[in-house]
């Protein structure tokens, strides 16, 4: 399956005004099928880690949150429609990464998704995805339409 996933990596040495220049920008278009998630997460994690110093927890959190975001985009956003794709863009910085996942669906309001923290929620097999993303990432933002998520994770 690897050969069908086209990963683009653009490296830059230009410092941003904030002093934290983008050292690499990764982009990937993913078909709307859940079977691609594992491969995509592995590819992106490898590029986010190569050449950077990161804590051991960084890879775990990145993999879980990215897997969640891709599943949400493919299943909930694109409805597993084979004519739609998911766009992934990752900004790899020295201290952190920004992971952008955008689907072609009509979006949702993240404020309407309840957190699965009540005792009755424990035996529910669904509803933990967004909660995990919010818990594991340092910052989570959505666009106004609700079809694009930006997750920030610090390396340490």
């Amino acid at each position, binding site marked *: 399956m690897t050969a069908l996933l086209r990963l683009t990596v653009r490296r830059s040495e230009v410092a941003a005004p904030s002093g934290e220049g983008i050292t690499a920008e990764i982009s990937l278009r993913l078909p709307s099928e859940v079977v*691609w998630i594992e491969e995509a997460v592995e590819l992106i994690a490898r590029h986010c880690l190569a050449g950077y110093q990161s804590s051991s927890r960084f890879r775990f959190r990145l993999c879980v949150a990215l897997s969640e975001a891709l599943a949400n985009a493919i299943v909930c956003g694109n409805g597993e429609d084979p004519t739609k794709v998911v766009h992934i863009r990752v900004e790899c910085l020295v201290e952190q990464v920004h992971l952008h996942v955008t689907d072609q669906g009509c979006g949702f309001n993240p404020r309407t998704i309840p957190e699965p923290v009540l005792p009755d929620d424990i035996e529910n097999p669904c509803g933990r995805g967004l*909660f995990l993303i919010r818990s594991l990432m340092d910052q989570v933002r959505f666009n106004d339409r609700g079809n694009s998520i930006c997750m920030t994770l610090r390396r340490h």
Partner: protein
Amino acid sequence: MGFSSTKDEGGVTVVAVDGQLIVGNRQELKNLVQDALEEGERKFLIDFAGTAYIDSSGLGALVSISKKIREHGGELRLAELNEDLRALFELTKLDTLFAIAESRTEALANF
């Protein structure tokens, strides 16, 4: 990457999760346990020693499997969760739903 199933001398079906337990492969694990239940197996141990990460669909699959095993009068234990995986269970409070052992040996001894 995937699941391997063995049966120990005490009659416990031990399922090892190698790689990831995520939306793309969770049904495979559910089918494996369902088939074993239909064959009459009632004691299950899922070993996460070789597991890199689990997503919410994987956690959900474990919840479904646990319920199914209980409905058949069986018992499920989990073992060999690393620090990150254990934190995931604690975060979602699923550590209160599952019997979690440090090691495979400890889990098998408690059946």
